[in-house]
Every structure is written in structure tokens, then in C-alpha cells.
């Protein structure tokens, strides 16, 4: 087992309580950062650490912070994207359950770096326990003076609010999240302008994933160089991989970026359950294209997976064994996206429902020969032509499943 | 006087009745020729009898239609024109012999209204006069198309009048008389002892010229240029109802009168071959003597049969050929018929002088 950075203390009981957290050295770095460093130092440190966003798109966090205009009168906001809706993903929940203070520490550092005084944690409504735990942690931290007015007497103010979403997948998309946070219907906005310039309430806004922000205290504690060394040069640190499906030991594994997928499945997760053969792996949450067994000897970082026409996404690895009919997978995927499409733009609204209807028909055994071609055509009509990435997220797995498992699907149509 | 009146009434009634039923005959004949059935709807208490009531229905229809005069036309002349045509044609019947004599109570009645000694000239003159009806109607209708129709009609009639007259010169040469009764009388003789000495055998060319010219005179289809419903508008366009009916009727009367003339001049009139006043005397020997009444009956029937045949023939021609073009019509009259009839006269003269 490689060294754990983020989750090193997660086996400590009651780590979510501030006392336990501080016992383990929590908030020490924050004190140092606030008292000794300037905001620019923090930003350049994070930039140097090549910390990529852990939410799915994999955009470098430091660069993103840099987009926020510095000299404006408008208030700036930080939105923490805790709306973990991707099927197969449960890493943020892991962090928030075990160590909410780590996240809070990261939030304070980020806000300090960018000059933000208001932070929202947008958490999905289903995570009620975690929301309560976060709220408790916030009040604990406020009591200790880590959050609130005049933090640690440095004159830096920060107000952190937990906002519960209603559980829409689309609200994990950053602009939809903003709309939702503003109290409107969770529809994605047209980009550009990007949220860094025009975001929450038309003001500059930074939006980061829970895991991304949780990494910031580690970077500040041990330095960017050390952090980069843990992973790859362009993709630093470790990642939390949530392995689920037909493996012997499903769960969250913190591994350096660049660990092989094969290693992850066979070594850490213990291989396939009851000695069955591997059928396929979905490497980064449901929206990432599927990989066949001969493709899984691949480094788990954004660039390598992109090369293999897949994506790392949120690092949620779903393992399928030979018993899983691929039509089931396809049906789940299309069902999910047609249900979760917000209905704003045409290709995603109607395309997903159309594909879902076709797949359902195939599932009922009423498939027609040309259906697969039709699905491919529809999916490629959605791909790259929607308002927000949800369309792509829907089209990519569908396309890859149809392409890679065409024979099996065809046999289902004939049968 | 009374005798003449009765004879005239009989003749004119016969004439008009036949003309009336000629319309029916024309319809029926054309229908049968064209594989149709023809008028058969008119009925009287459900009896149809081959559509024989059709002429009556037509007559009633014509009579009950609106009688109108176009604006700016002379009402009197407009009304007069059809009657003019009708009158001149109707009168001609009075010179046609239907049979020889009928002896009733020792008194001798000629079966002819009046036996003029210029019979042929009289008929030709009256037929020529009927043109006035055409011209008058065309002019008085105050319509340029009717005027054109009338002018064309008069041009045509005058042209063919010449050929008509010339074709008869031959007949007058071989049967040296202008009296119809005498011409018919000449034809009762025998040629070569067996062939009736009919005009057709003496004047075959004359017959053809007469037939053509006479048909042109009747203004029916191959020569129907004055009317020409499909290409020009005829002289009686502005007529309707009974007055229009009169024109139509005059046409049929002309057909009938031409048939009568053909019969009388070229086909021995009322003569039945080899029937004499006392009965048949066949050239191959053998007699069949008959009483006087039966002989006269035979004669009248024979005359009618011949007339019917020529009516039939004219209708056949009318329903067979397409119409001439106007220039063709004039060419035909002036450049063909007239020279031919002159040639006929010359040839007849030469042959007779031999």
C-alpha cells in the first residue's frame, strides 16, 4: 500500500470532531498559512502542485483560481461542489463523513488565496448526514475561530454556508449548481462567460470539488514538490478511487495518480468476486466510456485515459464481470441520463429519452436490426452539441458500449 | 280551285310531316351508323316507339322557348327572314308530281299540285330566292359574325346555283321539256327494250354534279360553311326558339325537296319499272294486269320509296364526310363543278348530234 495523504487518519474514531482533528495536527497548517503567507504564495504553491480538479473535468485548480479577476469591487464566492451525483462515485461522501474539517481547512485556505469572504457548500439533499456533520463542523470551527469574522485575528473574514440541493444530477454541473444556489431552476448556463468571471449572483465565483479542496491543506503542509512527487508531474498527488461492482473488496482507495487500473482492480480491490472473468471496467464514473479487459492495463491519470478514448472523471471505478448482461448496463446508463437531463437543450432532452426508449425496446426483446446504428447516430448527434457536458457524459458511454459490445447487443436483438 | 287547294294541302302536309320526321330519321340514322341508339327518350304515356315522339317534343320545345330580337335590329325584318326561307322552299313542293292520274268517278285528277310548263325554272328560281332569308337574317341580326355567315352563305349558294342550273341543262336536252310531268313521262319509256329510260342512265355525270350542287344548296355538312358551328358563328346565331326552328326545318325541307328533284329528274319520278297504266308488262314477256287504283298506289309508294332512299343517302353523306374549307368550297364549285357541267353539256350535245 502506498502512503496515504488525504485519508491517513481516517481510521481514527470521531475524527469529524474538531478536538480529534486538532489532536492529529489539524488546523496547524491553516494557522501557519494565514499568519505567515500571502494569498499569492498559496496560489502559486497550489499551481505548482499541479492539483487537478477531482470532480470530473480535471482542470488544474490553481489555474482556475487565477481566472478570478483580482481588482473588482464585486464580492467573490467559493462554491464547494459536494453534489456527488455520478453513479459509482462516493469519494466526497467518504471525506465529508470522516473528516469534514479537512475540507473546511481547504476552503479557508482557498478563500484566503483568492480573496473570498463567502463560501457555499452545495451538498446534495440525499447526503443529509454529511450535511449535518458539515454544519456541526462549521459551528465547531467558528467556535474555535477558524471560520467567521476575523479568523485567527488576522483580519480575514469567511462565512461558510451549507446548502442542500434537491438531488438533481445536473446540479453537479457548475453553472447549474450556481443557478440552483441562486434559487432558480437548476439549468446550466451558457458558457462563456465562465463562472470565474460571471458566476454566482453575476459575481466572480470559484467552484471546486470537495476532494480538490481537501488536498489543499496537504499541499500547504508538505509543499508542492512533495505533492507532485506523489503522482505524476502534470497531475500531482493522490486520488481517491471508489471501486464498486463485482470485486472482492469494494471501497475507497487512496492511490497515487498514475496507478494502473489493472493493479487497482486486481491488487487493491482483490480481483473479481468468486473467480469470474472480467467483462469490462468503467473507469471514471458512469459518464466515462467503458474499457474492455484488454484495455485496463492503463495508467489512471487524465491524459492517459483521454488517449484511450475514456476519461478519469471522478475516479469511480465500476467493475463488471461476465455475468452482467451489457444490455442491462446500457439500459441503466440511458435510463439515468434521460431521467437526469434537465430538459433545457434539445439534443440532450430528446436524444437521451429517444435512446432510452430504443434501448428499453431492445430490452423488451423487440429490437430491430437498425436500432444499434440508430443509437450510435443519435448519440453522436448529442455528442459535442449540447449546452452543458451532460450531453457528452451521456453520449460517450453509450457510444463506447455500443461500439465495444456490438456483438453481444446484436445477439440480444436477434434473440 | 278547291281541287288545287286540296291537292296543295295534301302535298304540303305530306311535305311538312316528312320533314318533321326527317329530323328523327337523321338522328336515328346517324346513331345507328355510329353504333349508338339515338333519340329514344321522348314518350307519350310511357310509350316510346323508337323515339318517334321526339320531333313533337322538339317542336313543342321550340315553340315554347323565348322569342327574342337582338337590340338595334329591325324587329320586322328579323322576324321575316326565317319565314322567307321557309316559304320559298315550302312552295316548291307544288310542282313535284307524286303519280300520274287518279280517276275518281270519271274525273281525272293529276297527282301534282300544279304542272307548270317552266317547272324546273320555277324550282330553281324559288330555291335561289331562299338565299334572301339567309342574307337578311345575317344582316338584320346586327352582329358582325352573323353578317359574315350570311355573306358566306349567299356566296356559296350563288356559286352552286350556277352548277345546279348547268347540270340540269343536260336533262333538258335529253328530255326536251321544262314540265316535270313531261320529263317524268319521257322516263317511262324503255331503252334497248328493257332498261327504263331514266335520267341517271342518260345523264350519269349530270346526276353527280346535280347531287353535289344540290347538297351544297342545302347547306349541310360537307358544305355547311354558312353555319359552321365549330369554327365560325353562323347567320342564325341571333335566332332562338321557333324562328331558329324554322331555319332548321327549312334545312330538312331542302333535303326532302332535293330528294324529290333527284327522283323526278334522274330516277323516273313515280315510275315503277315496267308498270304501265294497266299493269306490268315485263320485257322478258309476261304481263300482270292491275286495276287503276292499285297502279296509282304503286306509283305513289314507289315515288316515296325513291325519295326516302335519297334522303337516306344525303344523311349518310352528311354524317360521313368532314367539312370543306371555305376556299376549297369555292374552288370546288367554280373550278370543278362548273367546268364539269359545261363539259357534260358539250358531251351531251355531241352524243345527241351523232
Amino acid at each position: 500500500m502506498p502512503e496515504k495523504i488525504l485519508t491517513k487518519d481516517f481510521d481514527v474514531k470521531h475524527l469529524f470532531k474538531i478536538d480529534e482533528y486538532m489532536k492529529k495536527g489539524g488546523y496547524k497548517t491553516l494557522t501557519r498559512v494565514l499568519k505567515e503567507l500571502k494569498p499569492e504564495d498559496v496560489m502559486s504553491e497550489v499551481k505548482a502542485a499541479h492539483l487537478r480538479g477531482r470532480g470530473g473535468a480535471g482542470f488544474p485548480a490553481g489555474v482556475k483560481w487565477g481566472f478570478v479577476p483580482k481588482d473588482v469591487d464585486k464580492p467573490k464566492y467559493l462554491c464547494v461542489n459536494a453534489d456527488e451525483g455520478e453513479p459509482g462515485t462516493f469519494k466526497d461522501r467518504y471525506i465529508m463523513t470522516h473528516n469534514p474539517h479537512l475540507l473546511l481547512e481547504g476552503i479557508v485556505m482557498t478563500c484566503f488565496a483568492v480573496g473570498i469572504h463567502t463560501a457555499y457548500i452545495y451538498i446534495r439533499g440525499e447526503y443529509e448526514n454529511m450535511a449535518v456533520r458539515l454544519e456541526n463542523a462549521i459551528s465547531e470551527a467558528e467556535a474555535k475561530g477558524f471560520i467567521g469574522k476575523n479568523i485567527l485575528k488576522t483580519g480575514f473574514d469567511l462565512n461558510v454556508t451549507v446548502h442542500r440541493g434537491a438531488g438533481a444530477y445536473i446540479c453537479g454541473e457548475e453553472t447549474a449548481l450556481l443557478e440552483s444556489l441562486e434559487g432558480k431552476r437548476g439549468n446550466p448556463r451558457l458558457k462563456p462567460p465562465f463562472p470565474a468571471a460571471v458566476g454566482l449572483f453575476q459575481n466572480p465565483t470559484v467552484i471546486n470539488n470537495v476532494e480538490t479542496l481537501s488536498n489543499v491543506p496537504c499541499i500547504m503542509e508538505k509543499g508542492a514538490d512533495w505533492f507532485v512527487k506523489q503522482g505524476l508531474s502534470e497531475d500531482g498527488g493522490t486520488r481517491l478511487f471508489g471501486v464498486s461492482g463485482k470485486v472482492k473488496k469494494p471501497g475507497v482507495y487512496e492511490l497515487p495518480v498514475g496507478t494502473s487500473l489493472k493493479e487497482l482492480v486486481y491488487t487493491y480491490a482483490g480481483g473479481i468476486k468468486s473467480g469470474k472473468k472480467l467483462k469490462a471496467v468503467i473507469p471514471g464514473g458512469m459518464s466515462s466510456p467503458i474499457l474492455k479487459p484488454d484495455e485496463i492495463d492503463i495508467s489512471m491519470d487524465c491524459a492517459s485515459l483521454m488517449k484511450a478514448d475514456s476519461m478519469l472523471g471522478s475516479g469511480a471505478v465500476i467493475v463488471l464481470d461476465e455475468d452482467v448482461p451489457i444490455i442491462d448496463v446500457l439500459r441503466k446508463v440511458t435510463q439515468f441520463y434521460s431521467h437526469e437531463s434537465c430538459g433545457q437543450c434539445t439534443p440532450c432532452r430528446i436524444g437521451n429519452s429517444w435512446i432510452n426508449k430504443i434501448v428499453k425496446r431492445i430490452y423488451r426483446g423487440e429490437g430491430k436490426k437498425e436500432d444499434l446504428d440508430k443509437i450510435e447516430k443519435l448519440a453522436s448527434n448529442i455528442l459535442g452539441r449540447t449546452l452543458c457536458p451532460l450531453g457528452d457524459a451521456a453520449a460517450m458511454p453509450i457510444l463506447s458500449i455500443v461500439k465495444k459490445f456490438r456483438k453481444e447487443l446484436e445477439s440480444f436483438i436477434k434473440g | 280551285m278547291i281541287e288545287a287547294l286540296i291537292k296543295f294541302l295534301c302535298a304540303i302536309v305530306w311535305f311538312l310531316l316528312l320533314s318533321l320526321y326527317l329530323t328523327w330519321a337523321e338522328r336515328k340514322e346517324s346513331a345507328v351508323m355510329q353504333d349508338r341508339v339515338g333519340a329514344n327518350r321522348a314518350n307519350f304515356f310511357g310509350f316510346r316507339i323508337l323515339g318517334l315522339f321526339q320531333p313533337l317534343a322538339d317542336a313543342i320545345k321550340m315553340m315554347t322557348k323565348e322569342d327574342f330580337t337582338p337590340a338595334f335590329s329591325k324587329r320586322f325584318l328579323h322576324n321575316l327572314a326565317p319565314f322567307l326561307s321557309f316559304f320559298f322552299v315550302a312552295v316548291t313542293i307544288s310542282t313535284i308530281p307524286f303519280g300520274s292520274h287518279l280517276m275518281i268517278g270519271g274525273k281525272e285528277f293529276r297527282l301534282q299540285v300544279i304542272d307548270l310548263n317552266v317547272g324546273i325554272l320555277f324550282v330553281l328560281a324559288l330555291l335561289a330566292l331562299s338565299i334572301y332569308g339567309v342574307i337578311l337574317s345575317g344582316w338584320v341580326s346586327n352582329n358582325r359574325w352573323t353578317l359574315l355567315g350570311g355573306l358566306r352563305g349567299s356566296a356559296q349558294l350563288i356559286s352552286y346555283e350556277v352548277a345546279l342550273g348547268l347540270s340540269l341543262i343536260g336533262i333538258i336536252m335529253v328530255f326536251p321539256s321544262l314540265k316535270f310531268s313531261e320529263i317524268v313521262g319521257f322516263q317511262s319509256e324503255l331503252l334497248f327494250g328493257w332498261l327504263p329510260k331514266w335520267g341517271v342512265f342518260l345523264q350519269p355525270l349530270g346526276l353527280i354534279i346535280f347531287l353535289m350542287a344540290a347538297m351544297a344548296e342545302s347547306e349541310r355538312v360537307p358544305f355547311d360553311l354558312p353555319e359552321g358551328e365549330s369554327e365560325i358563328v353562323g347567320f342564325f346565331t341571333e335566332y332562338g326558339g321557333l324562328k331558329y326552328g324554322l331555319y332548321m326545318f327549312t334545312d330538312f325541307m331542302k333535303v326532302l325537296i332535293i330528294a324529290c328533284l333527284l327522283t323526278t329528274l334522274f330516277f323516273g319520278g313515280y315510275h315503277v319499272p315496267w308498270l304501265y297504266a294497266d299493269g306490268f308488262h315485263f320485257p322478258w314477256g309476261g304481263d300482270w294486269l292491275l286495276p287503276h287504283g292499285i297502279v296509282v298506289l304503286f306509283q305513289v309508294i314507289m315515288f316515296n320509296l325513291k325519295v326516302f332512299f335519297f334522303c337516306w343517302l344525303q344523311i349518310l353523306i352528311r354524317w360521313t364526310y368532314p367539312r370543306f374549307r371555305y376556299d376549297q368550297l369555292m374552288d370546288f364549285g367554280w373550278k370543278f363543278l362548273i367546268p364539269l357541267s359545261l363539259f357534260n353539256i358539250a358531251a351531251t350535245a355531241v352524243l345527241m348530234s351523232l
Partner: protein
Amino acid sequence: MVEIFINDSAIKVKEGTTVLKAAEKAGIHIPHICFHDAFPPEGSCRMCLVEIEGHPCLELACSTQVREGMKVYTETENVRDARKGVLEFILAEHPMDCPICDKAGECTLQDYYEQYGLFESDFLEEKERKDKKVDIGKGLILDRERCVLCTRCVRFLRDITKTGELGVFERGVRSEIGIFGDQYIDNNYAGNLVELCPVGAITDKDFRFKTRNWFLKKGASVCPLCSRGCQIFIEYHPGFARFKVPKRVYRISSRVTSRDQSQKEKGYWICDIGRYGYSYMDKDRAENIILKQKNRPAERGEAEAFLGEKIKKLIYRNKLQRMGVVLNTWLTNEELFLARKIFTLDLELEKVFFTELDTGEKDDLLLTADRTPNKKGAEEIGFEINQIEKQKLFDETELLIVFWSSPFGLGSITELLPELSKVRTKILFTPFKRKWNDAFDLVIPTLVSAEKGGSFTNIDGKVQHFDAVLSPPGEARAEWEWLVSLGKEIEVDFNSYLGMKFPYDVYKKMKDKIEFFR
């Protein structure tokens, strides 16, 4: 100014222009459904995708702003494929009930299908069933199946009227437009939704099923129902050869002409009062000249002679001040100018009054309190818009000429009725048959503004010319024609009235005489 290339042809546009607008300027139509000039781009219909050199995937023309040297391609295989794809998606869930859809014939979707689609449908699945007939207030009927969720209606009510009655409900393919509970749409601009809707999802009861829009003809005119003078199209039925159509005018639609920024928010819309208040054009119209003493419809010459004779008699008797005139602000600039010339300048009358204005409540967007079209024009021509002084008007008056053009009721002018009998000769110019017409000796039918040419000066002082759209009913002629012939008849300044054959001839004279109209 930025130079960009659209389909390889260069065009210069202002900085900040979107690709769609630039292409429109270059004469290239990029199909769009959700985009509307009056709103910021929404980008949800995905019809306007174009290829831009250097961009990995297709870009939205409606929201992408031009950059120097940008190369845009609007007709490549990829673009056409994308359009077709989007159309296929929309049509997959769109009910094919064009035959009963009032929008058919002017429907964006139909046009685009003809231009960019033309495919056989591969959609073998069940379409989503939604409500076909939802009352959303103000006579508007929403058909949710036809809706393509462009959200123009939602944005209109949110951004323009700021009432926000409509919203999008549900998600994904079940998304639908709806009202919140029983908060029905109730504002004066709701009729615009029908025009705004690119498909037939929102229709109004007023036009619904009355006729098909391809039978209608459009004529440009100016709305006379308030002093804003919105530019409108009058959509009228020219009639069938054999069958009588119940009315001429079927609807009024807005005419977008003023696209400058100051007018931007207002120029696209008309209010419901103008939109639905057109029935006066066909209802109770006076068609015949009625000369009471003759007891039969009179001819135009008779009426002119009658009118001229009465005035001339007063002139000979030197009793011109016994003549009164009542005008109104429904008349065009030209007519008011002629009226002023004849009655005030030529005849020097003192008793020239204006009827009471039609008024109503104003609102923030367009509707003004003054519900007559030409008050400003009358003022600029030189009239004082005064109230009728009954005493002055009826005192010793022998001849009274009343111009009454308001399609609304008679209002307070009914107070004059009992006094009318005092006057010996009363003459009325009116386009309408009303009961009070009987009180006049000569009733001359005139035209409503849709039937005559002329100009109105709106509340902002803008002179708007318009031509006749409808043909005049019966014997009715425009007031200016009557005034011109009256001017000739009374022979005071005969030559001035020669050569006035069209409203613009009058306007040319006005331009010479009055600074304002230059």
C-alpha cells in the same frame, strides 16, 4: 469594426456582434429557434450551430461574438448534419398536427424542416403524451406537446413584462411550460406570446381556428388605439371568389422596424389592447351617405353640393360665425392640417373644438393614457386641444359640422345630443353607424385609419406615415378627400386644393407650412 469571413466572404461588423447577427447582415440566415433579438441568447435549441475555423466542435452562432479574422462556415456538411440532427430530435417529440395548428404556414419548425430537414422519421417509439389544451390565462391556450421549450415565453414574461407568470416544470423530456398554480397570465402584453412562440404551442382564442394564415394578407399600418402609435401589420382576408368571409381583419401583429437600442425593448411588442381591439374595422360601419331630407342614400356630388351651399350661404349672409366645427384627434395630420386651413385660416371660424379624448390607464411599457393616435400632431399643427364649451358652441349656431372617428362609444359627447336640435343644419363625418347619426341632417361615411393613407404623430413626436391596407366599405371615403373637395366647393382659396390627390400631396404642403413636419 471587426472583419470576419462568413463562408469565405468578408464582412465588417461592430465589435461585440454575435456571429448570427453578422451572418444576417451578410444575408445568410442561420436557423435559430430559441434566439430572439429582444433577449440575450439562451443557447438551448442548438439549431444555430456553425463551424468556426480552429474550434474543435461546432459553436453557437447566437452567442459567439465575432473576433478579428474569424472564419465562419454555415453550410458545411457537419453543420448541416447538426441542424438535421437537432430537427430530427425536435420533430421526434413534436406532434404532427400541423393541419389543426394555427401556426402552420408561418411556423419556424416547418420552414426549417423544408430547408434543412426533409428526412423520413426514424422515430418508432411512443411520443410523450402531454396536455394539448391548457388554459394559461387571457385567452391563451398552451399545447404542451407542440412546445419545443425555447422558453421565449418564459423569458418574455420574466424580462419584458417582469411578471414572470410562466415557468418550466419537470425535467428532461417531460419538461413543460406552465403557470404557477392558478396564477394565470394577466398582463397587457400576453398576446405577444402567440407571436413569439416559434411553433404553435401558444395560440389565442381570438384567432384560434378562425382561418388559416396563408389565406391572410399583411398590410403595414400604425396602431391608432393609443398615442404610442405602435407599428403593426393588419392581417386581413382578401376573401374567396364564391364564399363570403365573415370579416376582413383577422388579427394584428407587431411590425419590427425600430431596431435602435433605445427602442429595442419596445419595438418588438404591441399591447393586447391594440392587438385584439380591431373589431371596430368591420363592425357597424357606415357605408352610405345619408341625406335626411332625401330619405335615401345620396350620391357624393349631392352631399358635396349640400355642404358647400350651406357654407356659401353663410358666407354671403356674412354670418360665418354662426358655424361650429367639432374635430377629434383620431384624424391624421393631413386631415387636421386641412381642417385647420379651411375652418380656422380660410373661414376664420371661432367655434372650432375638439371632442373629449378617449382615455384609459397607462402602463410602463407602451400603452399611454391618451387613447387617441394624434393628439401631438394636432398640437403641432396649431390647434389647442380644448374642451367643448357648450354655451359657445350652440349659441346662435346655424351650421354644425362634427367629425366623430372614435371606435369607442360616444362618451361624454352624448351630453351634446339634446342641444343638437337647436342647430338648424347638422353634418356628421363618421366611419361608424351609431344611434346618434339619426340626429344629423347629413351623415357622411368616412374611413378608419386602416383604410386610408396619412400620418400620425405619436406621443414622442415621431411622424409615422402609413398607407391604406383595406379597401373602403361602400361609399365611404377618407376625411381628407372630403375636406379637399369641401375646400374646392367653398371657393375661398380654390387653387390650394388643386393637385391634392394623395395624402402625401397634403403632407408636402404641411412640410412647407409647418416647421415641425420638415
